[in-house]
C-alpha cells in the first residue's frame, strides 16, 4: 500500500433537513465513508476518493436535484474536484 493512497478527502455540511438526505446518499455511495457530527456541522471523511451522485440524492428527496445546490449547505472540503451534471467527485491523485 502506498502511503499517499490513504490520504483522506473530506466534505462538511451544515446540519439541517436538506443535508440529512445528502449525507445518507454519500454513505450509500461510499462504503468507507466516516461521518463525524460536530455542533451544527457534519463532516464526512473518505480515503482517496468520495463521490456524490445526483440520482441517489433524487431517490431520497423525491425531486429533481441540481448538484450545484450543494453550494447552499457546504461548509468546507478538501481534495481536487470534478463536477458533472451527474456526479460531484473529490479525490487526491495517487502516485
Amino acid at each position, binding site marked *: 500500500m502506498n502511503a*499517499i493512497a490513504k*490520504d*483522506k*478527502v*473530506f466534505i*462538511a455540511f*451544515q446540519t439541517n433537513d436538506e443535508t440529512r438526505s445528502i449525507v445518507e446518499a454519500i454513505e450509500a455511495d461510499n462504503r468507507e465513508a466516516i461521518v463525524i457530527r*460536530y*455542533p*451544527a*456541522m457534519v463532516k464526512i471523511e473518505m480515503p482517496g476518493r468520495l463521490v456524490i451522485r445526483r440520482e441517489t440524492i433524487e431517490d431520497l428527496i423525491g425531486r429533481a436535484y*441540481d448538484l*450545484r*445546490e450543494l*453550494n*447552499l*449547505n*457546504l*461548509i*468546507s*472540503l*478538501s*481534495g*481536487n*474536484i*470534478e*463536477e*458533472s*451534471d451527474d456526479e460531484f467527485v473529490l479525490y*487526491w*491523485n495517487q*502516485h
Partner: protein
Amino acid sequence: MNMPTNPQKPAKKLSLKENYSHLTRGLGWDTSYQPMDKVFPQDKFEGIKIHDWDKWEDPFRLTMDAYWKYQGEKEKKLYAIVDAFQQNNGQFNVTDARYINTLKLFLTGVSPLEYAAHRGFAMAGRNFRGTSARIAAQMQAIDELRHAQTQAHTISHYNKFFNGLHDYTHMHDRVWYLSVPKSYFEDAMSAGPFEFVTAISFSFEYVLTNLLFMPFMSGAAYNGDMATVTFGFSAQSDESRHMTLGLEVVKFILEQDPGNVPIVQKWLDKWFWRGYRLLALVSMMMDYMLPKRVMSWAEAWEMYFEQNGGALFNDLTRYGIRMPKYHEVASMEKHRLSHETWATFYNYTHAAAFHTWVPEESEMKWLSEKYPTTFDKLYRPRFEHWREQQAKGERFYNGTLPMLCQLCQIPMFFTEPDDPTKICYRETTYRDEKFHFCSDGCKDIFDNEPEKYIHSWLPVHQIYQGNCFRPGTDPTAPGFDPLAEVLQYYGFHVGEDGGEYLGSPDAKNWKAWTGKPAVSE
C-alpha cells in the same frame, strides 16, 4: 451556430460544461485597437508565464444565473434567522459574556479583511487577461463584500448590549494588535495579481481558513450564538468555492510553465508563515476565549494542517512543490502558541478593545488534559500567580510597550523552536538600520523583500514617534498621559472596552440583565 433540426421541439438544455464554456470562452475577446499587454499591464511582471488561459477551469462551473439564484437564497435564509435572533433577544442565550469577546476580536480583526478581500479580488479580476479567471475573481469579489456586510449587520445587534463593538473600521486602521491582520492583507494586496491569489485563495483560504472558520463556527454553535453560526455558515458556503478556486489557481499556474514552480514555492513559503502567525489570535480564541470549547488549538492544527494540509502537499509533489518552509516549527509550537498569546493579551488588555481573564479552575484542568506536556509545567503557575495577585486587588497590567516583529507586527513573545522558556529574537541589518523579528520565518520574508518591509507601519514605533495622538494634542502639556491619549486616538471608551473581564461593565450588565453569573459553571 447549430440550427435546431426540429423547430417544434424545445432546444435541448445545455449541459453544465457547455453552459460554463459559453460564459467563460464565448464572452471573451482580444482587444484590437490597444495591445493586450497595455490593457493588462500587471500580469507579467511577477515572472509567471501563462501560455494558454483557456486551461483555467472552475470545477464548480458556476454560471451567473445559478450564482445569483443561490446567493439570493443564502441571503434570505440568513436574514430570516438574524431577525428571529434579534426579536428573541438571542444575545442573552450565549454561555456567558466572556464569549462576546471572540466577536469583538472577529469584528475588528476579520470583518475588515472581508472588505479588503472584496477590493483585492476586484483588482485581481481587472488584472487577469483570461476570461474565466476574471469571472471567478468577480464572483469572489461580490462574495467577500457580502461577507463584510452580513458580519457587520449581524454583530451590530451585539453592539447594543456589549462594549468594544462601536467603531470597528476606525479601530482596524489604528490599533496595535489589529495591525497584524491589516498588514497581512495589505501585503497581499500590494503584490502582483498572481501572488495575491496564491496568498489569499490558496495559502489562506485553502490551506489555513479551516482553522479559522471551522472552530469559530462550531464554537459559536456550542456557545449558543445562533446569529454568528448563521453568518459563518452563509459565508463558509462561498468559502468552499473560494478554496476550490485556490487549488485550481495554483495547479493552473504550475501546469503552465516549469519556470513558475520556484516562484510559487517561494510564495507558498512566505504566505504559509504569514498566515500561520496571524492564526495565533485564533489559537487563543479556541483555548481561552470560548467558555465552552470544541477542540484545542493543537488538535485543530493536527487535523486541519498536519493531516489535510499534508494530503494536499502530497498531491502537489507531482509538480515539484514541497511542504512550506518552517511548517515543522509551527507543529513544534502547537503546544504553546495559545498560552503564550493569551498571556500577552492578559498583560496588555487595558490597551485592547476586549477583555481578558484568568481561566477558571475547571478550564485549567481542560488545558492540562489537552496540553499534558506543557500546561502544568510552563503556564499554569503563571496563571495561578496572576489569580493570587487579582485576589489581593493587584491585577497585573504591563505599563510598557512591547517590541514588535518588523514582519508580522506581533509583539516578540514567541519562544525558541527548541526551548519554550526562551524568547526568540532574530535581527537583520539593512542599509545600516537594524530590524527585529520574532522568528526565522519572518526574517526570511524580510530578507527576500527588504524594500517592501522597511516601510511597515509598526504601531509601537508610531506611538513613540508621536503619530498616534488626536489632532491638536500637546504632548508637552503638564500631566500629559501618553497611554490614555493613544487609547482615545484608537476610539476606545477607556474603562469600558478593555481591561479585566471580572467586574467590567459587560460582566455587571450580564448579571443584571440575565440573572446568570458572569462566568458560567
